């Protein structure tokens, strides 16, 4: 079987399309790990552009993905998160695993036309998710 071995050895270890960091990542972290995702919308899609003048586009972002069993410092998780995962796995599966949720937000400036025709510039807190955590 030498020629089989030789042909096997000639095969690339890593598929050309996958670079090394991604290759190792699949071993180190779960595939769809809890992380921040974009969702760009314009207020005209929501038919709110008759009173929201600016911004023209808004990306509130959101958190999605699986929380690893030992969601430690990497997510800024607290000890309770791992306790809940252990309960889910060993005692009672009806207790849900920890969830992937926003941990930090940033504000949004909005320019609106009020019903009386006046114009308002306002800065609202907590309108864009900037970091995820497992809770």
């Amino acid at each position, binding site marked *: 079987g030498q020629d089989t071995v030789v042909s096997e050895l000639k095969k690339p270890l890593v598929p050309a399309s996958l670079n090394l960091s991604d290759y190792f990542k699949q071993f180190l972290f779960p595939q769809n790990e809890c992380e921040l995702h974009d969702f760009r919308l314009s207020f005209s899609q929501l038919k709110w552009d008759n009173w929201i003048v600016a911004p023209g*586009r808004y990306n509130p972002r959101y958190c999605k993905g699986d929380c690893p069993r030992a969601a430690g410092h990497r997510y800024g998780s607290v000890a309770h998160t791992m306790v809940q995962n252990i309960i889910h796995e060993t005692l009672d599966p009806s207790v849900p695993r920890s969830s992937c949720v926003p941990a930090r937000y940033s504000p949004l*400036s909005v320019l609106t036309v*009020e019903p009386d025709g006046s*114009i308002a510039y306002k*800065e609202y807190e907590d309108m864009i998710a900037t970091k995820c955590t497992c809770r």
Partner: protein
Amino acid sequence: SQASRGEAQIAAGAELESEAEPWSLLQPVDGRDRSGFLPPLFKVLSDGPGGAPRLQPDSRALHYMKKLYKAYATKDGIPKSNRSHLYNTVRLFTPCAQHKQAPGDQVAGILPPVDLLFDLDRVTAVERLLKSVLLYTVNHSVSLPSAVKCACNLVIKEPAPSGQSLPGAPHSFTLNSQFEFGKKHRWIEVDVTTLLQPLVGSNKKIHMSVNFTCTREQPRRPSARDGPSDVTLLVSPSLILYLNDTSARAHHSRLSLHDARRPSPGPDQRSNVSAYPVGEEAAEDGRSSRHRR
């Protein structure tokens, strides 16, 4: 009807996720309209698209506020962190009524004395006034023979005590600030903070009369032709309130949190009147923030 609406709301709750419109997801569960419950941004949404018809804003006012927005926030709506001001809310009101008085002795083509009434009903109890200005748009369709120097006399008429229709006794406030404007000026701001400070928050309507008296920089040459006297160089003003919304929903920059511990700075002690070429205001803020640091 509130209870039935509330029940209807709960009954619909079962299939709420699928077909409801986004704003109805924000309705308070019990259907009661508790204005403090929803951030103003979403409170308007909860009225749904069929909400009260919206008055169209003045186009010049909208143009000015869009420039202000660009000075304060990025294209994606993120407040710029390099700003030096404390306000997180800016409201622009156009007069809901104005009466032109008999023309006084003023340079032909400047605004005739005018009576203005502003309805400040949109200002909420948690919004603190930091600064207020009258914003005049310079009408460039009239060619200015030379720079013009103006003084502005402003009389606030105390709001009528309840039950009376006429405004109460006026008290006069004269802005003796001179300012001049020429071809390049687009807007003129008259700072009326000290005058409105005691009124905003306690009154929902502000009634004032404004009179400009102006003189030319250079004596008039006999051959010089005035702008047509019936065209006003200054278009009637909007009232801009720079406010600090103290509620938890509003964004409080580090600056305002830091200043929250110190007595809030009085309104800008700059001269009462400033003329701004286009875009100057933003640069002004930039300079003052560097200076302050």
